[in-house]
């Protein structure tokens, strides 16, 4: 039986594999369902990867290749799909050899994230070719197979500007970017860059009402300030609204946090089954690769402690959110004498106080003014937790 099986060879999984191997584990297995390991950075050709975790300034493919190279102490099996998490740390897989069960003491889920496609957004209209997501669009453009030349880009998270950049670099001409909210979700300079460098209209307070077209997208109907208008285009790129790829955890009956969409974990990255750990973007809507990698590193440290039987199991105090926060993780904390950082994200624009409550008593607060989707964190100190019950992270 192996000690650790890691599902997903992206930044979190590969960094955890490297850390476990460097700590002396010789039997770590990384499963990757794609033919090539490295994760989503493989398809992002712009620069900026590796800054936080490897202190380099690389493009995505280079960064992915370096992560793979540094994880060489673990066995990486590509083209292997995890079918189900067994309750005992093992994994059922499909490979070229057929289906089989892999036994291991601990499984680490680092399956990453994807964008929300059209389906669950319940957008009206026909269902023509040319409706896609940033991830699929960038892969197709990289392969020289763009599905559209004049797309409308839906959303204004950072990834929407990444889609715009990819399109412009390939000589494609997006016709507009639409954002339902009053201002873009990404930080402001992106907005100006799109408008003035690329001359792409960025339309805020604008909703997509309908997709039109028989075989291909022909136009979209949008609404702004109560006025409806049709924009001719040949594609629709739905960007962002990231969804953790957590179906293995869901199918295994692990506790799922409806706020994050990922498995609920404690401060040691343990899921509701202590044989299953999770780290990286499978935990919550997207953070950049450096954070995912750091979580992989920290999860590896916790796994090493767990394998030695040195990880505290109780008491696990529940952590919940209130007010203008969408979620908090970890969703449970197990005090072990060290500070524990809680991470949250704003659900809407809000000015008020960020507070940490323990058993209803405020132990920390600060004034804060945030925009939708902005991240925030707070530190729980060990002495605050002694003998206590429930923790609440509040933005009110």
């Amino acid at each position, binding site marked *: 039986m192996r000690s650790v099986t890691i599902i997903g060879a992206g930044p979190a999984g590969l960094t955890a594999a490297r850390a476990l191997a460097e700590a002396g584990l010789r039997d770590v297995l990384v499963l990757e*369902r794609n*033919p090539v390991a490295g994760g989503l950075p493989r398809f992002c050709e712009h620069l900026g990867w590796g800054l936080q975790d490897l202190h380099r300034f690389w493009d995505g493919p280079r960064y992915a290749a370096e992560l793979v190279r540094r994880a060489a102490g673990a066995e990486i099996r590509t*083209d292997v*799909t995890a079918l189900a998490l067994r309750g005992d740390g093992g994994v059922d897989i*499909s490979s*070229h*050899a*057929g*289906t089989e069960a892999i036994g291991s003491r601990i499984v680490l889920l680092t399956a990453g994230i*994807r*964008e929300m*496609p*059209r*389906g*669950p957004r*319940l*957008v*009206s*209209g*026909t*269902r023509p*070719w*040319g409706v*896609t*997501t940033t*991830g*699929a669009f960038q*892969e*197709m453009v*990289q*392969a020289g*197979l*763009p*599905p*559209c*030349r004049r797309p409308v880009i839906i959303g204004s998270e950072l990834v929407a500007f990444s889609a715009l950049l990819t399109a412009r670099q390939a000589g494609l001409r997006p016709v507009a970017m639409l954002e339902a909210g009053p201002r873009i979700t990404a930080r402001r300079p992106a907005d100006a860059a799109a408008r003035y460098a690329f001359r792409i209209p960025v339309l805020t307070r604008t909703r997509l009402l*309908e997709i039109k077209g*028989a*075989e*291909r997208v022909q136009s979209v109907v949008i609404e702004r300030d109560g006025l409806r208008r049709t924009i001719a285009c*040949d*594609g629709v790129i739905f960007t962002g609204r990231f*969804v953790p*790829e957590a*179906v293995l955890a*869901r*199918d295994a009956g692990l506790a*799922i946090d*409806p706020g994050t969409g990922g498995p609920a974990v404690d401060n040691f990255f343990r899921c509701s089954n202590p044989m299953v750990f999770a780290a990286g973007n499978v935990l919550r809507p997207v953070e950049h690769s450096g954070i995912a990698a750091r979580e992989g590193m920290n999860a590896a440290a916790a796994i090493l402690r767990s394998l030695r039987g040195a990880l505290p199991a109780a008491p696990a105090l529940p952590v919940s959110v209130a007010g203008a926060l969408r979620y908090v993780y970890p969703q449970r904390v197990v005090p072990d004498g060290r500070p524990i950082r809680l991470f949250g994200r704003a659900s809407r624009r809000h000015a008020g106080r960020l507070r940490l409550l323990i058993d209803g008593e405020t132990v920390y607060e600060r004034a804060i003014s945030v925009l939708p989707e902005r991240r925030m964190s707070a530190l729980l100190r060990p002495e605050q937790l002694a003998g206590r019950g429930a923790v609440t992270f509040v933005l009110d």
Partner: protein
Amino acid sequence: MPNQPAAPFDVAIIGAGVVGCAVFRGLVLAGLRCVLLERDADIISGASKANSALLHTGFDAAPGTLELACVRAGQRLYEAIHERLNLPLLPVGALVVAWTDEQLAKLPAIVAQAHSNGIPDVAQLDAAAVRAREPGLASHLKGGVLVPAEAVIDSWSAPLAYALQGKLNGGEVRFGAEVTLGTLSGNVWTLDCTAAPLLRAGVVVNCAGNYGDIVEAIARPSPFAIKPRKGQFLVYDKPAYGLVSSIILPVPTERTKGVVVTRTAYGNLLVGPTAEDQDERGQAKVETAAMEALAAAGERMVPALAGVPVTTAYAGLRPATQFKDYQIEALPERRWITVSGIRSTGLTGSLGIAQHVLALYEQHFGALAPLNDPVWPTVPNLTEALPRPFMQPGRSEIVCHCEMVTRGEIVAALAGPLPAGTIGGLRRRTRCMMGRCQGFYCTRRVVELAAGHIENLVA
């Protein structure tokens, strides 16, 4: 006309929906020289591509109708041949669930109707028995009717198998062939098809679905008018599959059978359809408000659905007419067989309809000489009910990770006697790009494989 064949076809079937495919298969196996004409680039591009994929018993069909006869026969024929064609049958049973006292009062009549329709094992259950069978249903239910023989099937592979068997036994299939005009001269029809040479056939069968009245006008002033009825559906992600085990049917109203909750053969849970009349025949739009209403209806029946993501939504058009029953008849003088107004039971009824068309042909147009030893092809299994390629040793790369579709399946669907002609056809032959990520992970790979076979994927 240099390309005109010397001998006319015995039969030209217009429309390669599930009914046209089944009629084509039936007539080919009966020994006739047939051509199946389809205006689109693939089979089941119209009404048949989007339905609830159920194999009905006919327990609730109006007594004495042709629909009831064809559904009963179609169900038995499907049960008889599905294994040979490698088609699935998930005998999950259906429960008609009453949510109000008013609906509860209607259940005895539903049981009596089923018994008189020849389905004796239909029985009423009290609320406790329904809850015991379906613990995922909301607890305010009042009772139900169990219909053990209702089943879930694969609505894409069945017509593919029928068309394939017709083709492999000598039938011809032509795509992009919209029949615009026809003239009957003597005993031979000459049909004018778009993008194809004139075509001659001894008998024409109109299986044109949502265009049935337009095609009918080639033979006579159409006695019926098609008024497409749109049905929208929501597909929930696989964790919802286990929330119910049977097909959950509502107590029907005068107008509609109502919103159904059912497992799909592909491991999802389906909620739908809506029922909306429209004039547009070619396009079925999904609508935000209707999808939200379906989600709310689904959650009222199965509360745990609230915690499962929607994978996608789709809409289908059913060829309703002003008449409730199927519009099937032979016009001997016109050498024409009308098969129209197949509202919502076409998938189940198709094999029964084909049998009925054979009888009409024999009665009016000549004796049949069935093939002695026809070829029985098998179609690739798409469903969770039978082994799938990703489970097999030596499998090729998995391209679509949500639906577990291998490269081998995609390559095979793009080749062979009836290759996918559209991206929709490829999706319906393999399930690729149909899962929760809707192509986020696999579109590029699928396009790489399909680009030489399907047009207009790359802009």
